[in-house]
């Protein structure tokens, strides 16, 4: 085997790839060759490191130097200075935030310091397209242990002791699900990995599939052994091309090594996995709709019961687990359930991955122990709110979840605490909002999404969410009426009770939780026709502050509809009947004389 004195790890996740990391890799290979270093320095394409905000990310070992925002133009300098001469290129290192000092290595950065990476343990460390890399990091050891040392009952027992709950959002105990699957009698059973990650802004599962696909395959085989299934399916969105490609490579490699297929480890256990692509319908993340889709039918949910564990895919007992849930399994087997259960809170064990987005400095992927407070996530890991704005609320659980207002920022994040305050864990999207976000509009945005994605099978969801959206659209357009809030609440509760599947049952959550915590904003929209956050265009008026206006006429020249008039060197005025509220004047004014409220 060749010996490399240095490894250059370049992130090949979707985030960094779209900011050009593939070109960075090519450039590294080219430069190393030019300098004759290609035999001693290895370039490795890895999965997501998490700090997507700062991509493309490059880490150089053995120093562990952490470079970010690297373009092909920076590569010659890193090769020349760092790899040839051994001088870390300081100006390309991670830029410190606030009180941070200039740091060279990954783990010294605040963003990583407070994280505990379990599901993401291999992301950004291994080359996801090399099964040997995964095996080197104890890959497939857990499967070997299960097949040779444990009975299926014992495997389920280990998972039960770990306290692992489903990471897809529901939080159902994984071992219980497996137990149902195991106790069902049938000639054929199935394991499905639900990788139909549909929440807007969520990309945890994608990163696991891209960065560590083998951990999911290994866990599926373990699940297959536990319940007595010989076939698995990964249902993944076609919109995740890199994830699909790496998963297929991983499946091929695992088959070649005999880690999937017949008679694994000579134990007589057979298990194989196939990929099924989803066409991007949100409802197909719901397990019964997902199974319909795999069967080649329309993605519409089935009534439960019968539960999938008894009558699932093709009418056979099936267990459906989320990507992140599965990624936790091998490490639980290897390190023991006690280790896993030592992290987290009483009823929520282990860690959770969140996709941090919205008004936050460090956009990216974070994995934290359950029980970490929202404040720690937003300020210590996320780096706070940009531009000195005030934190207003965090939205978890995407279109099914709710908002956590600033007053509850010290809430310890776990399944039960989030449910208690009217939100939910969800799959892990965490969108941060500041004072400029209008909560009514946020609710409208999510409802607009669910109306679009409702499959239309049941009336409460199909018609109910549409009616709610119409009311919300009226409110943000300044046409809200007294009684609208009560109507929304009533409709919301009715949909929650009456809808067929999880999509409908949770669709009203964003509305109900914003009404609960930000009722005053709804009232301001309806009664005063005013948007307190200054966001809803229809309720805004631009006006010129006479004392600040110098009469330069710039605004009247940029106004596309000729709504601004005046005499040069005298204060100008805006004709509100003509104004289309495009904001062009405010952007151009050099004196800050135009206000919006």
């Amino acid at each position: 085997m060749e010996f490399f004195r240095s490894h250059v790890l370049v992130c090949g996740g979707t985030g960094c790839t779209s900011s050009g990391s593939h070109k960075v890799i090519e450039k590294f290979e080219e430069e190393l060759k030019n300098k004759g270093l290609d035999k001693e320095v290895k370039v490795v394409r890895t999965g997501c490191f998490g700090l997507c905000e700062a991509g493309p990310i490059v880490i150089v070992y053995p120093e562990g130097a952490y470079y970010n925002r690297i373009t092909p133009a920076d590569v010659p300098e890193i090769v020349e200075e760092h790899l040839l001469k051994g001088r870390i290129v300081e100006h390309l290192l991670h830029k410190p935030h606030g009180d941070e000092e200039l740091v060279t290595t990954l783990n010294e950065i605040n963003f990583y310091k407070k994280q505990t990476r379990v599901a993401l343990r291999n992301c950004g460390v291994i080359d996801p397209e090399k099964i040997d890399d995964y095996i080197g990091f104890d890959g497939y050891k857990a499967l070997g242990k299960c097949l040779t040392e444990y009975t299926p009952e014992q495997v389920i027992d280990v998972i039960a002791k770990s306290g692992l709950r489903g990471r897809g959002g529901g939080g159902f105990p994984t071992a219980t699900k497996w137990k149902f699957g195991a106790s069902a009698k049938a000639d054929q059973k199935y394991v499905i990995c639900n990788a139909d990650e549909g929440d807007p802004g969520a990309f945890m599962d994608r990163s696991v599939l891209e960065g560590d696909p083998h951990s999911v395959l290994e866990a599926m085989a373990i699940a297959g052994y536990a319940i007595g299934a010989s076939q698995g399916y990964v249902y993944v969105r076609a919109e995740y091309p890199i994830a699909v490609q790496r998963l297929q490579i991983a499946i091929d490699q695992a088959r070649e090594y005999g880690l999937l297929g017949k008679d694994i480890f000579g134990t007589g256990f057979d298990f194989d996995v196939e990929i099924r692509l989803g066409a991007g319908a949100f409802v197909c993340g719901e397990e019964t709709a997902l199974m319909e889709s795999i069967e080649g039918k329309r993605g519409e949910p089935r009534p439960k019961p019968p539960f999938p564990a008894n009558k699932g895919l093709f009418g056979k007992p099936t267990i459906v687990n989320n990507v992140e849930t599965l990624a936790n399994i091998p490490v639980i087997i290897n390190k023991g359930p006690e280790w896993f259960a030592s992290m987290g809170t009483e009823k929520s064990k282990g860690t959770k991955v969140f996709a941090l987005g919205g008004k936050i400095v460090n956009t990216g992927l974070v994995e934290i122990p359950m029980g970490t407070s929202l404040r720690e996530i937003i300020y210590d890991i996320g780096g706070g709110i940009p531009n000195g704005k005030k934190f207003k609320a965090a939205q978890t659980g995407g279109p099914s979840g709710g908002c956590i207002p600033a007053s509850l920022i010290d809430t310890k994040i776990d399944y039960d605490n989030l449910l208690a305050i009217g939100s939910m864990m969800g799959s892990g999207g965490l969108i941060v909002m500041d004072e400029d976000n209008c909560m009514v509009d946020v609710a409208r945005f999510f409802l607009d999404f669910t109306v679009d994605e409702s499959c239309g099978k049941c009336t409460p969801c199909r018609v109910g969410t549409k009616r709610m959206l119409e009311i919300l659209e009226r409110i943000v357009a300044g046409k809200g009426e007294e009684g609208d809030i009560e109507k929304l609440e009533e409709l919301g509760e009715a949909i929650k009770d009456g809808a067929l599947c999880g999509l409908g049952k949770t669709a009203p959550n964003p509305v109900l939780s914003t009404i609960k915590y930000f009722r005053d904003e709804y009232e301001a929209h309806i009664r005063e026709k005013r948007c307190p956050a200054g966001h809803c265009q229809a309720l805004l008026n631009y006006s010129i502050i006479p004392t600040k206006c110098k009469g330069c006429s710039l605004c009247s020249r940029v106004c596309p509809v000729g709504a601004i008039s005046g005499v040069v060197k005298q204060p100008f005025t805006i004709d509100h009947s003509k104004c289309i509220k495009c904001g062009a004047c405010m952007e151009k004014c050099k004196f800050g004389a135009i206000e919006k409220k």
Partner: protein
Amino acid sequence: MKSLEELAAIRKKALEDIDLRKKGTEKRVVVGMATCGISAGARPVLSAFVDEVNKRGLKDVAVTQTGCIGLCRYEPIAEVFLPGQEKVTYVHLDAEKAKRIVAEHLVNGNIVKEYTIGYEE
């Protein structure tokens, strides 16, 4: 895959490849690769260290480079760091000397006194 032994063999082989990333290697050889070092011939020295460490399969040794430490007249310079010991600075190296340092110092723990900076001075 027919047995756990087979998996363990692959793991062992893979570990050699990824060691650098998995844990900090304990022994370090740092070669001065600034302009002064390179012009004095540090490049073949570095290559010799890399080759020799590889040939002997020393998985706990990392070979890295550093910039100028200010003793340009002694270049090529390499420093050897072993856990719990004072670093040893070797000067006026060439490829042959580098190989001897690997054999005597890194493998057997005996400092090659005649190459050290103290000996020169």
